[in-house]
């Protein structure tokens, strides 16, 4: 579960007859197709790689999402975000022959990039939108996404190494080689991650929770070698949220003890937490422990009001749950490395907070996290009216 901005902004669709899919008992069974003819991810899917690392045009929405923590040789510390969104206009089967291959309207792509230089306190970000075609590409069959001269691709499908190169205007760029330190995990019961009671609100959610990173960051013409750890999500869906949801909070936590936590809380308009919210522990071995909405709590450790959007974000965030290893209650405080890590999102018109955090337990740092807070700057159910 990652930024649903695009999903929500672009996908309010009506539903076909439900009840054709196997689903968790708490939720309405999944439909096979959305009203506008896109496939709905189904449980029990057998994934095939590297094909399933690539694009899935039969589904409406898809993204490849990298967040990471990097360190330089002189104790420089950085956080970065690289997100490539794909949104289809019409299902492949319904698509007319495009007038032009390089200017087709079958799908559009969005790119969000951000770089935090912790030591200087500088946070820069950019967003771009383009139709699939000459400038951008998300390949079917293998992992290769490109947006102008920014790209991510799997170089070696056996070693599952990935290379990332990105440029934020002419202010900064980074080039990283990523190597999984843990195998790919698939979140959700029976391979399906539910996001609400709607029969289409589900996704296939594939994650590399810890990738070892090495490469360079260039700022103002100065190149700095960096090393660190990265989280990668690849999520495929056609419609995820329900109209009664107002936003969500998400965190990808990489603990120093080698374990990870992925958690999202779906917030309802009435202030309650949606039962589809989830927290998952990833053990050193890669084994997953799922916690349902009742087994963890998100709390507000403070409030930060954005000078850009005016939104008041619950920062720091506090997550309370049970450690599956010890069975003890655990309180993790996600302390932002910089408060102003809001992405203004002028293109979509939906600002959100996505930033690097220090994870504090009992007053001591125990890991790093990326935190995402959406729906605090007005309703997310806004149109894509850039």
């Amino acid at each position, binding site marked *: 579960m990652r930024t649903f901005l695009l999903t929500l902004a672009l996908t*309010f669709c009506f539903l076909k007859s439900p009840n054709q899919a196997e689903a968790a008992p708490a939720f309405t069974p999944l439909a096979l197709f959305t009203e506008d003819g896109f496939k709905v991810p189904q449980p029990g899917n057998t994934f095939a790689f590297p094909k399933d690392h690539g694009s899935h045009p039969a589904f409406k929405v898809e993204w490849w999402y990298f967040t990471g923590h990097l360190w330089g040789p002189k104790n420089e510390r950085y956080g970065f975000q690289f997100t490539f969104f794909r949104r289809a*206009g019409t299902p492949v089967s319904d698509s007319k022959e495009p007038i*032009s291959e390089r*200017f087709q*309207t079958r799908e559009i792509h969005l790119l969000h990039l951000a770089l935090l230089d912790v030591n200087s306190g500088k946070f820069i970000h950019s967003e*771009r939108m*383009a*139709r699939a075609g000459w400038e951008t590409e998300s390949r079917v069959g293998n992992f290769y996404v490109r947006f102008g001269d920014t790209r991510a691709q799997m170089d070696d499908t056996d070693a599952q190494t990935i290379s990332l190169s990105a440029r934020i205007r002419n202010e900064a760029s980074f080039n990283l080689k990523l190597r999984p330190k843990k195998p790919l995990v698939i979140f959700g019961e029976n391979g399906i991650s539910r996001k609400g009671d709607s029969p289409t609100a589900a996704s296939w959610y594939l994650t590399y929770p810890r990738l070892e990173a090495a490469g360079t960051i260039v700022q*103002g013409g100065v190149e700095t070698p960096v090393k660190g750890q990265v989280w990668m999500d690849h999520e495929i869906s056609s419609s995820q949220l329900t109209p009664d949801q107002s936003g969500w909070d998400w965190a990808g936590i990489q603990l120093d003890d080698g374990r990870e936590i992925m958690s999202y809380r779906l917030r309802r308009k009435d202030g309650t937490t949606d039962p589809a919210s989830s927290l998952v522990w990833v053990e050193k071995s890669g084994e997953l422990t799922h916690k349902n909405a009742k087994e963890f709590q998100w709390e507000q450790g403070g409030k930060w009001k954005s000078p850009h959007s005016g939104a008041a974000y619950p920062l720091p965030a506090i997550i309370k749950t049970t450690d599956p290893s010890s069975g003890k209650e655990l309180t993790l405080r996600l302390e932002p490395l910089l408060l102003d890590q809001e992405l203004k999102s002028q293109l979509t018109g939906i600002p959100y907070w996505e930033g690097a955090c220090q994870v504090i337990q009992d007053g001591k740092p125990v890991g790093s996290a990326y935190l995402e807070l959406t729906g605090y700057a007005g309703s997310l159910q806004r*149109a894509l009216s850039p």
Partner: protein
Amino acid sequence: MTKARKEPSLAHMVAMLLTQFTWRHWRQHPIRALLLLGLLSLGVGVFFSIRLANRAAVASFNNFAEAVTQQTDAVLSARAGTLPESILDVVQAELEGTGVEIIPVVEALGATPRTRETESIGSRGFYTVLGVDLVALQNYAAAKNKDRSWFGQPSPEAASKDVGEFWKVLNSEDAVFCAEPLTTRLAVGIGATIEVQMNDRLLVLQIAGIIPRRDDQPAPPDNLLVADLPVVQKLSGKIGQLDRIEFIFPPETSQSTSHSLLLAKLNRAAGESNLVRTPESRRNAAEVMTRGFRLNLTILSLIALLVGLYLIFQTLDAAVVRRRSEIAILRALGVAEKHVEWAWHAEALLLGVVGGVFGVCLGWGLAQGSVRLVSRTVNALYYANNVAAARLDAGEAAVAILLAVVVSLFAGWIPARQAASTPPAQLLASGTGLIGKRWPVWEPVAGLLLLAAAFFLALTPPIQLSQGGRFPLAGYFAALLGVIGAGVVAGSGLGILGRLLAPLSERSAVLELGSSHVKNPTGRHRWAVAGLLCAVAMTGGMSILVSSFEKSVIQWIQHTLQSDLYLTSDANQAATSNNHVPSATWRAICSKPEVADADTALIIPVTMNTGNLRLVGANLGFSQRHDQFTWVQPPDSALVFDNEKNQSLCVVSETYSNRFRVAKGGRVSIPTPNGMVSLEIAGVYTDYGDEQGVVFADAAHVSRWFNRDDVTTLALVLNPGFNADAFRDSLRREYPGVAVFTNMHLRGEVIRIFRQTFAITYALEGIGVVVALAGLGVTLASILAERRAELTTLRALGMTHNEIASTAAWEGGLLAVCGSVGGLLASLALGMLLIKVINKQTFGWTLQSAFPWRYLASLGLAVIACGGAVAWTVGRWGSALPADQEA
């Protein structure tokens, strides 16, 4: 001991003289003052209006994409035809990592739909339909549009609807955005449809929204329609093609973003078939295209000011005469020479400033009319524009006022020196000013020397400009010196005319008196003649040029337009309209039983480093069969007419040959999507339809080089027994998007457009003549004022007001005869100079000579009649002596 008297400062004295002395004179003769100011203003106003109109026409060569994106730093386009989309991959690879924004653009010119069955070419409005990637556009538009967003109009608050709008627009094949003024003018709103003629189709497009305005850009022009790029590709028949790619460079923060480096990368990606230009150089190309036309117009607009110069000189000189007694008193009172002189300079300066300011105001008003005439001409000859109003430009206004000041100071210089340097006693004694005196005997010799200088200047070659342009500077100076020299010589001829008329005038005291002044002309008489001669010569000379041009064009079209019917896209309303008749349509038309023979022409503009030209791909065999070429250098063999053998041959127009200085046997290189093609010039032909230059190659090869099967025009020869009008009507019914002209209609249109392009020329000449006649009036008024004592005697001797007026009419009429006849004679020489030198050097056309005798005679008679009438009126005014007024 007396205290040394401090000499007053120059500024103080000049100010005192202006207020105490000059101003009083102006106040006493307000009509004269206003007339002088009016004529100076008219001269400046005409110049200013033409400058504004020219500026508006050049400014209309817009980069429309900038109205919706942001200012670009470079533009890549094909030297000929369009760019393949695949070049985006090459460009992108070359620019990898540089941060350069790449904006592909398709642009088409559509016309408003036909409203009448038969109409004039160019009479309809047109739209520039801009195809840009609406999705990528959001990257430049977000947060920069000040009034609205692209998507989600008209109800951005309705979320679900907005989502629908976004995809609805993207998936639509007829959605366009238009400028707000257009929706107001057409009284339509979002969701309404708009009809646009493009190629052979009438498109019904849906208005998806209003083009958002950007804070940092001017409002988009009201004939601009914006649609998604692939939609415009499809509508204009350019699937897979682009008209250009625009680039926005990042700030020059490092070596890798150095703009010269980026341009070098782009040039590498462009290859030799394509061209990388900065927006400035692209705009310059438009300026270069119309440079000859604009320069000629500006020079024509100076006629009125040139004639006005004579007038100001005379008026200030007459003022010196009128005020001589006061000048003498001032000098006797010890006012220094320099103070008197500078007071006159200051007066001329003030006259120039006030006249200039009034001229700018007048010119701005005149520009609103002249801009349409200029715009129509630019439209017909160069590129599409729909300028309806000229904007006031501070720089141009400053130039116009400066010109007025310079002219005024120049004209007032000699009178000022005269006022200052003449001893007081002489000032009191003498009754005439500088030009009121008899002129020296060497004067006709000086006139003849000027004419000789003009002759030699006429033989001087033009100045070579960039892009094959030429400017006949020496030719223009020859014209200037010629009319001045002719004016001087004609002034000397006044006495001869007076003596010739002496026997006739013996019968009447009025005639005798009138001609006696002409028999012994003063400088003032000569200046009046010179001014009139200048205006008549220029007007007559231009009419000879236009007649010669018209005669040549008529003969040319009679030779060239021999087919029965001519067809083109109904959307082609301007010189650069690039609408075409698709392959299926023209092939179907050519295969009809009525058609005996057909020729197609594909016209492709080509941009070379050395200048622009047009490549025409047509059936050379057809042209030979129907004897359509008028040769300047005929081909030596018939090979060039055989499309089996002419793949490396072409013929070129005379203008091409002159501009690029190549003749038969030379070679032409043409860039094509399939590489450069080198052609040998087999012949040079006359073409009055194009001043840039045409390379004419066989259609079979041109369509292959450019991978095209559509055509720009189609000429049909019908089988005997078929009626052209009936066939035209049936074609119009079957193909409503194709404009069909009969031979007679097209010939009529060519002549009409030709005459339309000269409309502004006639207007400028007319103003010159009006200024000259007004100058004659002012001159006579000065002469009569100087002869006040003589008039008093005449009145005392019993001459009536009417008799005195008739005397003045006779005198003025004789001046007009001299100016008019001299002007007409000079116009013959000037006409030949314009035809053989200035036209030839500027445009490269060989014209046949034609003299519009009837027009010239009418002009001469009209000037004489007007001159007599003006003189009579002035004489009547002059005869009202103070004694009469007291009585």
